[in-house]
């Protein structure tokens, strides 16, 4: 893996009044890396992710996302990233084609590029017969795959995945990770949160947030070694047990 840095934060902090949601976090993520961003409920993950996506202005600290400054170049950041979450990904009352066209348009694809991308995507996902069906009629697993493909339709430098597999069946969950691996092998950096600890193992490196701070950052192998644990579950439990914040 090349060590080109695509995310770099330095003492990134977000305060809401007296409350320090994200407390001076510093880390780097490399090109093509699958980076697991873990933490207990209320640890400050969502706040941190919003800043990294250029949606929330930090209180202090620095960060560069895909080479752009987190304070001054938020519009450039938004063009260089993709985003998908379990809660929001596709418009249920638009068809497959309409969703692809909508998101492709939002991400600024030119119409001929979009047409080619759409054809390629539909073929890869095997959705030829469902092109004109409403997304609401698709099985959840297909929706998830379509949502991911749409999130990377503009070949972003980084894709942010916020609990992309919550509630998804075990077979589909694994197929979803095939897509993640594939995107990573094409050089797209994956920044992912999950509550499934087996998925934490699929990441190249993991950070663990507790009470607004990054308490640990390493490969799953090294973390398990460091904490004398057999599974990532134990590592998580060991770190998060001491949390004093019980937020969302």
């Amino acid at each position, binding site marked *: 893996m090349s060590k080109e840095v695509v995310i770099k934060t330095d003492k990134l902090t977000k305060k809401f009044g007296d409350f320090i949601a994200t407390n001076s976090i510093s880390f780097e993520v490399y090109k093509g890396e699958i980076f697991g961003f873990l933490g*207990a*409920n209320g640890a400050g993950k969502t706040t941190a992710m919003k800043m990294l996506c250029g949606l929330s202005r930090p209180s202090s600290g620095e960060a560069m996302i895909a080479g752009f400054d987190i304070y001054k170049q938020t519009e450039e950041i938004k063009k260089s990233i993709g985003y998908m979450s379990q809660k929001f990904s596709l418009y249920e009352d638009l068809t497959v084609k309409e969703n692809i066209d909508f998101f492709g348009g939002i991400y600024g694809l030119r119409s001929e590029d979009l047409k080619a991308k759409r054809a390629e995507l539909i073929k890869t996902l095997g959705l030829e017969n469902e092109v004109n069906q409403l997304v609401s009629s698709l099985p959840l697993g297909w929706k998830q795959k379509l949502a991911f493909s749409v999130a990377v339709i503009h070949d972003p430098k980084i894709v942010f995945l916020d*609990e992309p597999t919550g*509630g*998804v069946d*075990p077979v589909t969950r694994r197929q979803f990770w095939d897509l993640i691996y594939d995107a990573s092998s094409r050089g797209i950096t994956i920044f992912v949160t999950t*509550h499934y600890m087996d998925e934490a193992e699929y990441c190249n490196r993991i950070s663990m947030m507790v009470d607004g701070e990054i308490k640990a950052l390493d490969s799953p192998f090294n973390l398990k070694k460091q904490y004398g644990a057999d*599974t990532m579950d134990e590592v*998580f439990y060991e770190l998060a047990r001491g949390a004093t914040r019980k*937020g969302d």
Partner: protein
Amino acid sequence: MNMVEVVDVVKTYNKGSLTAVDQVNFSVKKGELFGLIGPDGAGKTTIFRILTTLLLPNQGSASVAGLDVVKDYKQIRKMVGYMPGKFSLYQDLTVEENLNFFASVFNTSIAENYDLIKDIYVQIEPFKDRRAGKLSGGMKQKLALCCALIHKPEILFLDEPTTGVDVVSRKEFWDMLGRLKDQGITILVSTPYMDEATLCERIALIQNGKIMSVETPDEIIKQYPDPLFAIKASNMGKLLIDLRNNPYIKTCNAFGEFHHITFNNLSDSSMEILVKSLENQNHKEIEINPITPNIEDCFINLMN
């Protein structure tokens, strides 16, 4: 005596075009901690809503404590506690106001059944004047459980109480369920987390509206058809692809640090032959061990 009896229940939506629950049968014994295990869209919530008399089945019958869910719905509603998957308390009322409200609806008071909720309520009591909408996920979950318990129900229906909750809070929650069970309350709980299945006495594995198996977790694991092995090597992504294309391999699924595999025509030399063939594909640091399947292995097997 069975607290819950579900016989050939069918529920369709959209004028019959979508079958949410398809000929489902199971029963829950009195005092049992029973789990409905399955992904989103499997039909878990529909089953809960039928049993709590909020939805009518299209076909089949169901009873709770010997009472019919269609005819005897009024009596059933008095004796069940229901915690829906979606947070459904009054966001504008405080913690204490919510609890008082639910107690008064059931003609009781917090004081009368305090023993039952004490264990859980003490954890949110410091925030009793906070509005429910301003609580964190973990605290909302505890308040919802208190509200479902305040009238001392005979049976608790908990629909995905731990979804989206972190590992630490999930563990705490299951500890609480264990203590409630010890007090004689029957619990029917659903979850998409396969690892929580082993915390139930019996489980139903459910997918696409159909129940695939109802057993104790141990028995489901025992019924796994093939010897299972865990394998890893230095390049896990390539290993997965190569294993899937390997003629000796019957099934291969990623499972965290390892891939889980079963063999075609397993023999004493299978492991050795596989390792050699992988070494020929330049895999390094190959490690393979026989393992006991977990519930997720069993679920995947039943799905295929």
